[in-house]
């Protein structure tokens, strides 16, 4: 058990990144790529070990460990400690992050052509930031890792994306940063106010959650909304989505996979950990707002996706729809809905990054994202289509893919909710069922426009040519217009989606006890 150090889990990617950046490391792109890929796989295996030794009936924090400096805690005078730990929900998300980073590193092979050294180290630093958020037990530690994400994301989006991506990267970072300032404000107010009541300066989440009930209700609501704003931009909840959508569309494929796969999870993790864990009373009061946000995400996102002609944009909006279902589950405040939300988040991460991978593969070959310029690709890249269809039907929510279970759980969790009036809940359920149909509409529209119909003349060539920096390079793709690494990525995602669709309890059992604890706390 001693080999399972949570500090090693979190910080080893950063150390690997430093190693890649250090002058000792050979400046050879193949070596860098192989090193990063191997590291990603080893890291995933290591995090699987954490699952292996995890006791799912333990309702507290597991693997808890404090990082100390010179034998004192991090900011001792401020009561801020660098303590990491995992409960069931964190563990699930850590596994998801590790898996998606591994996938993204494998997928980078065909997508990334320049500046390998910096690219791979930035992705690994990003992994540290993600993992830190999930494992932080202290609000300021959480905030530190939360803001740390912005730096790699800014460079990843701006340096390897489209022509206008530096603008959208800037927009994303500024937008997110402004929102997280509100979050910071909320956290500071919480921190000092709890100090004024309990007399102990502490940033520890558990001790903060104990002192909340003495706050005035309006005061709790103020902090609640400050925090919610910060999380809403990350998820994103609909009125705050523009910058996120643009950045996801214009980033290079592995980066958009990570952004669409992990960032919503981080946002909703924040809602679970802080809004639910710290303000149960207020959350009970404002849960309908969350449901409304979820439904708006579903319907509005689906309508937006239907109106788009850019395949990557459709995919980005599809992500909003998926997270909308998770929001509904969270707002329902039932055990079923909560479990469904966590399940949906994990699955949405897999599905949306899969969809981004498919569109990315298509975009790489065809150099266009307009649906009107695509068509009949099924004959040029049949394997991509086959694997894409698994993911596509996962997104639609076909039974025996995980998408169905998640949506089913969320909807039935919503119906079971105790929120009054009953009519509101029922109408929300009906509207989100309509959203299910619209969801199927745009995803099938995307796939039909891209893959079916007669093949366009420019795609008929045996090997697909494409240029980069003005140089004409002919790349003969070994088999059916898709490389081996891309097949691996897509099939891993597909396998995961089907696996959790057939054995949902394999995933649910990890965090059910934790969610019970959180919901019990909500009822107090």
């Amino acid at each position, binding site marked *: 058990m001693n080999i399972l150090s949570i500090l090693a889990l979190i910080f080893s990617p950063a150390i690997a990144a430093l190693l890649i950046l250090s002058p000792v490391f050979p400046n050879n792109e193949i070596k860098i790529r192989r090193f990063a890929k191997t590291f990603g796989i080893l890291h995933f295996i290591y995090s699987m070990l954490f699952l292996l030794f995890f006791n799912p009936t333990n309702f507290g924090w597991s693997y808890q460990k404090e990082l100390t400096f010179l034998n004192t805690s991090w900011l001792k005078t401020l009561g801020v400690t660098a303590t990491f730990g995992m409960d069931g929900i964190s563990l699930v998300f850590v596994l998801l992050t590790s898996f998606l980073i591994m996938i993204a590193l494998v997928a980078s092979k065909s997508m990334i052509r320049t500046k390998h050294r910096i690219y791979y180290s930035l992705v690994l630093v990003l992994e540290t930031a993600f993992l830190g958020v999930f494992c932080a037990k202290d609000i300021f530690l959480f905030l530190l890792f939360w803001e740390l994400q912005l730096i790699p994301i800014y460079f990843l989006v701006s340096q390897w994306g489209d022509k206008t991506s530096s603008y959208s990267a800037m927009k994303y970072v500024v937008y997110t940063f402004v929102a997280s300032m509100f979050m910071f404000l909320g956290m500071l107010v919480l921190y000092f106010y709890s100090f004024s009541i309990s007399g102990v300066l502490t940033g520890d989440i558990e001790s903060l959650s104990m002192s909340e009930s003495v706050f005035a209700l309006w005061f709790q609501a103020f902090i609640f909304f400050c925090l919610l704003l910060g999380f809403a931009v990350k998820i994103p909840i609909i009125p705050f989505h523009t910058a996120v959508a643009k950045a996801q569309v214009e980033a290079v494929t592995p980066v958009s996979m990570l952004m669409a796969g992990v960032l919503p999870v981080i946002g909703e993790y924040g809602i679970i950990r802080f809004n639910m864990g710290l303000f149960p009373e207020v959350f009970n009061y404002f849960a309908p707002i969350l449901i409304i946000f979820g439904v708006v995400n579903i319907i509005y996102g689906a*309508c*937006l996706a239907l*109106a788009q002609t850019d395949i990557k944009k459709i995919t980005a909006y599809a992500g909003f729809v998926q997270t909308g279902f998770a929001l509904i589950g969270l707002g329902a405040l039932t055990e079923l809905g909560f479990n469904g939300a966590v399940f949906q988040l994990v699955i949405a991460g897999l599905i949306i990054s899969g969809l981004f991978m498919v569109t990315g593969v298509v975009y790489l070959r065809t150099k266009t994202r307009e649906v009107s310029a695509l068509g009949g690709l099924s004959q040029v890249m049949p394997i991509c289509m086959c694997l894409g269809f698994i993911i596509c039907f996962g997104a639609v929510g076909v039974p025996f893919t995980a998408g*169905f279970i998640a949506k089913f759980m969320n*909807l*039935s969790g919503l*119906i079971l909710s105790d929120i009054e009036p009953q009519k509101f809940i029922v109408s929300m359920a009906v509207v989100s069922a309509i959203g299910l149909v619209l969801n199927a509409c745009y995803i099938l529209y995307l796939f039909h426009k891209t893959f*079916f119909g007669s093949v366009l003349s420019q795609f008929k060539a045996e090997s697909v040519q494409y240029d980069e920096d003005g140089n004409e390079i002919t790349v003969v793709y070994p088999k059916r217009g898709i490389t081996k690494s891309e097949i691996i990525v897509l099939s891993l995602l597909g396998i995961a989606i089907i696996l959790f669709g057939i054995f949902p309890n394999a995933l649910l059992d990890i965090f059910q006890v934790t969610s019970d604890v959180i919901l019990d706390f909500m009822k107090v």
Partner: protein
Amino acid sequence: MLEVSGFLINSSFAMLLLPLWVAVMIILNAAVPFVSSRKLTLNLSLGVSLIGIIFSVCALYFCLFSQNAAAENNLLWLNTGDLRVSLGTLVDGLSAVIMLFFSVIFFLVQVYSYGYVKEEKNFHRFFIFLNLLNFSLTGLILSSNLVQTVIFWELSGVFVYFLINYWYTKKSASDAAKKTYLINKIGDAALLLGVIGLIYFSVIFSSAENMILLSYSNLQFTAETLYSMVSGKTFLIIAMLPVFGAMTKCAQFPFHSWVVDATEAPAPVNAILQGVIPVATGGLLLMRLYPLFVLSTEVLAWLKIVGCISALVFAYVAMSQNNIKKIFAYSTASQLGLFFVALGIGAYTGAGYFLISHGVLKVLLVLTAGVVVCSMDNENDIKYWGGLRQSMPGVALIFLLGSGALSGLLFSGFCANTLLLANFYLQDNFIWTVVILFVFFMSAYYLFRVYFLVFEGEKSKIELKKVSNYMKCPLCFLVVISIAMAFCYKKVFASLVYFVSLEQVSLSDGGKVVMLFILLCAVYITFRLYMSPYSKFMLIKERVLNKENLLYKLSYNCFYIEEVNKFLLDKFLMKFCRFVDFIDKYIVNGVVVILGLTTRVFSYLVSKLQNGNVQSYLAYSVFILAAIMVVIVGIYLLGSLVGV
């Protein structure tokens, strides 16, 4: 025998998973490039269907002679929160009958398919998806609770989508597949909502571990409990949502267009879509949930209205179509409308018999049409056909028997039609009786119209292709099945599929004679119109069957429903989506952009203050200092004024 069948039924999970295993086997078979054998694929699939037939015969035997009429096996699958979903099998009379029908038809369709796609490049894919469809439909037929029904219901939709999409390079085929899936998705969503509603009451009702209201085995109890527990409106909604699901799968009035468009699919798929899918999905669900519907007169009325509209409208539309596949598609919608009406009127057993009989005969007709179309080099328009009886007498005979049976003159179709008529007639429903007779008349008209146009008259100039025997043999078997069905109504069917509170009735001989007379009238009129140049009929033909005639135009263009749908989709939904997109681009995003611009303008103004003169900077700071001072003094003075 009973023990053997009992053992088989208890191992029905294996039955469920067998097609899945075969699908995997076929994938492996197809993946090995040089060894892969088409015969092996066929034999595997046929073997599965054969086992299915044996299983269902045993189940039938079991249900007929065993003491406890139902056998249930359950396996807890999803267990979270208040939700306990189990997958399982329930073998009772209804599922045994439909399972037998399904496996026999599926066996024959697979034989036919082998002949149909023998030469295709993607042969294996076709059989993979056929087996997967087999899996999903088996799961659906044997499902023991509503959640399982939802799961396999949606799954069957997916595999149907892939089967219609078999020729995916053809745009019309892939569009039809998309349309089919999306329209069925509406029904899926409705059914899902209904089931979720039931889950709610299930949780409210019992704190026990199992979801008691969802299980089929105690549906009678569920219906009564629910009826006593909830208000009439809620009960209506919960009962209505599955009806919507069934309406999409059975191609009823607003949701019919998929079955018409799906005629782009290969003929065996078409046969499955029109013959098997409505029986195994929509029809089965309606008959399963009948205890729920019986309690609410509104639901029954709704069934009647929807069925009546569909039956009349689509029979009328089918009368003027020229595409043979479309005629059968509209015919399917119309006949299933009759099934809906029959359920609405309370003829439970008769409706079930009618449904299955229609399934068999429709498969027969569609497959026969497939043979003809294949031999005519994929020409669908019956205008270009004619006089095929000379070149393929056997097929012509089968088609004649099939259309005679479907219109109600022969075999199982006769039995089914008399059963329906008896229920209508004996319940003193004069208007309904007239309506149903009118529908019978129209069906006879359009079926024999096809026969006369295709097989009689002048011989067409199109050169005929040879059709493989794999495609012809199943047709004979289907005729035999139809004949056999006519004899086993009372002994087998009526004792297995019945509803306790509804008594079974049969038509008197006089009624039968009236019905036959009307049908023969229809055949005579058709014969006169299309076969003999009798002057008066020709006059009518010129008057009525004129392209300019409004009645004809309505019929030919299917009452312009498709156009209205298109208008709604293009003008309403897409406009709405574009409007949302506009809002998103210019208002939601605009606010963000404006905020950014404001910051820029402000920073520009502030940077103007930065004029490089040190004294100006000092002046600003002094000004700010003064402002702070004034504020402090103001606060102090205010405090002293208030008296703190």
